[in-house]
């Protein structure tokens, strides 16, 4: 690369450093400084969103990477619960607040976005919760974007292979297993403790699949509790009906 190009990129980055954005991060319950997304981020996010509607793992990996790269406070822990709120924040600050909510309808999310700080998280949201059945104990906690990224990278490879072989049912089943896996930190059973190292998700999947149905049900309920809060940042009321804002390629295209 020629020196000229480095000079231009240097000039762009210097301007970009001065234009920081204040984005509300729910688990911090405050705004955090972010730098704007770049065209490269836009391209990554759009191309991963367009990849395959059944395999969203890559899209989430890209979203997590972009959040980590743009966050100017690297020491804070960002959770998956924060992801929607941060992505909406970046979208509103960079591309405007009119977002698509269906094929032919848009919605101005600005007023709703400005109320984000009032959407208080449930008190026990980030605490370890222990679920128990028949002597088996599971310690659960909402995953950080780091854990989510580790699991999704592994899941993506498996889903890609299944989809190549047109195994749609297997993809859906394993998507559920990998999603549950992110929320588990420890399992205690028969006097033994399995500490979940999520970078080893492939070997942990059979453990999750072997859990008793009653315990899985309890786990689903706990995850649902977290998901409800996560989705509250993308659920708006329009014409008296609740509508979800879909974070996809169109959302980041800036239409």
């Amino acid at each position, binding site marked *: *690369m*020629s020196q*000229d*190009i480095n000079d*231009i*990129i240097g*000039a*762009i*980055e210097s*301007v*970009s450093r*001065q*234009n920081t954005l204040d984005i509300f991060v729910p688990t911090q319950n405050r705004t955090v400084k972010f730098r*704007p*997304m*770049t*065209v*490269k*981020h*836009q*391209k990554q996010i*759009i*191309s991963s969103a367009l990849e395959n509607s059944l395999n969203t793992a890559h899209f989430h990996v890209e979203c997590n990477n972009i959040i980590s790269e743009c966050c100017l406070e690297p020491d804070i822990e960002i959770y998956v619960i924060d992801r929607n709120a941060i992505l909406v924040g970046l979208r509103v600050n*960079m*591309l405007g607040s009119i977002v698509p909510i269906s094929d032919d309808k848009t919605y101005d999310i600005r007023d709703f976005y400005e109320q984000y700080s009032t959407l208080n998280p449930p008190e026990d949201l980030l605490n370890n919760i222990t679920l128990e059945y028949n002597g088996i104990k599971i310690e659960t906690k909402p995953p950080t974007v780091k854990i989510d990224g580790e699991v999704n990278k592994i899941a993506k490879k498996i889903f890609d292979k299944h989809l190549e072989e047109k195994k749609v049912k297997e993809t859906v089943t394993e998507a559920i297993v990998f999603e549950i896996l992110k929320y588990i930190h420890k399992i205690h059973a028969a006097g033994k403790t399995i500490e979940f190292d999520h970078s080893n998700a492939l070997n942990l999947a059979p453990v999750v699949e072997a859990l008793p149905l009653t315990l899985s049900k309890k786990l689903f309920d706990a995850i649902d509790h977290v998901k409800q809060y996560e989705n509250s940042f993308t659920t708006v009321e329009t014409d008296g009906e609740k509508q979800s804002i879909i974070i996809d390629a169109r959302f*980041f*295209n*800036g*239409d």
Partner: protein
Amino acid sequence: MDFTVPLAISEKNYTLRVSEFNNATYRTILKYLQNDDKPHLTKFLDNLVDQVIENKNDTLTRKDKACILLTSRSISIGPELELTFTCPTTQKPYKGTVDIPYIVEKLCQTHEYPSKTVKINDKVEVLLKMHESLWIPPADTLDAVTDVVSTIKIDNKIYTLDKIDLTDRRKLIESLDGSVFGHVSKYITDAWQAHEKIQIITDRNPHDPEQEPKEYNINLYDNTLFDFICLSLAGNLRESYQMIYTLTNHMQFSPGYVDNITPVETTIYFNIKTQEIERQKQEQQTSQQNNSPTLGGLGAPSL
């Protein structure tokens, strides 16, 4: 000195002189077409554009390049493109002809979508203008964004990107604030939608009067223009080698000379040779008839 013809670059108000391309160049084009190697064919055609024009003094857009290539094609291969269609009902073939100079004229008369300045923030703005690349890989449609950003203004300093190669240029555009992405994709979509389609041929099937005439169009803002250029350059590589063989072995032209003449000149020589062989065949047949034995030893009656 090469033979050249004038070509008016309507958008920029000046006239270029376009020259022919030779057999060696055409064979390379046919090889890329045969291999369906569009990335390398694009590079080759980009270089060819520079070779066939005199005094290049400005950045050429996709439209300019297309007009130059089609003009050079007209004088090197011929002004007409003959297409063969097949009737879906009767399976009978029929022909249609595209007048390439007429398509060039239509392209020249078509105005490019106006350039647009996008302000990203107080210090950075970019100028968007017509694509320069002849072809954008379908898998890299997002790279179309890179191609339309023409200049970047940072703190009142203007950086022109046309001399920067595509890889560096991509890296540069990717470092810009993402808000520019929506503007660029809207610019490309608006240009594509607003742009008048250029009709190249109407397919009227003579074997089936029931069949509605079908129009084939090209658009400056998608790959249909490149596809048309490829179609206009398509040919039979084997036939091309056969002609060279005939010219060098039966007509005693040197291989260097044959490589340096145009495909249309090759066809002319080849046709002369074919006609000569035909004439010789006919003469031989006539002389055989004249010398054939006659009934009762009598000669042929004198006329």
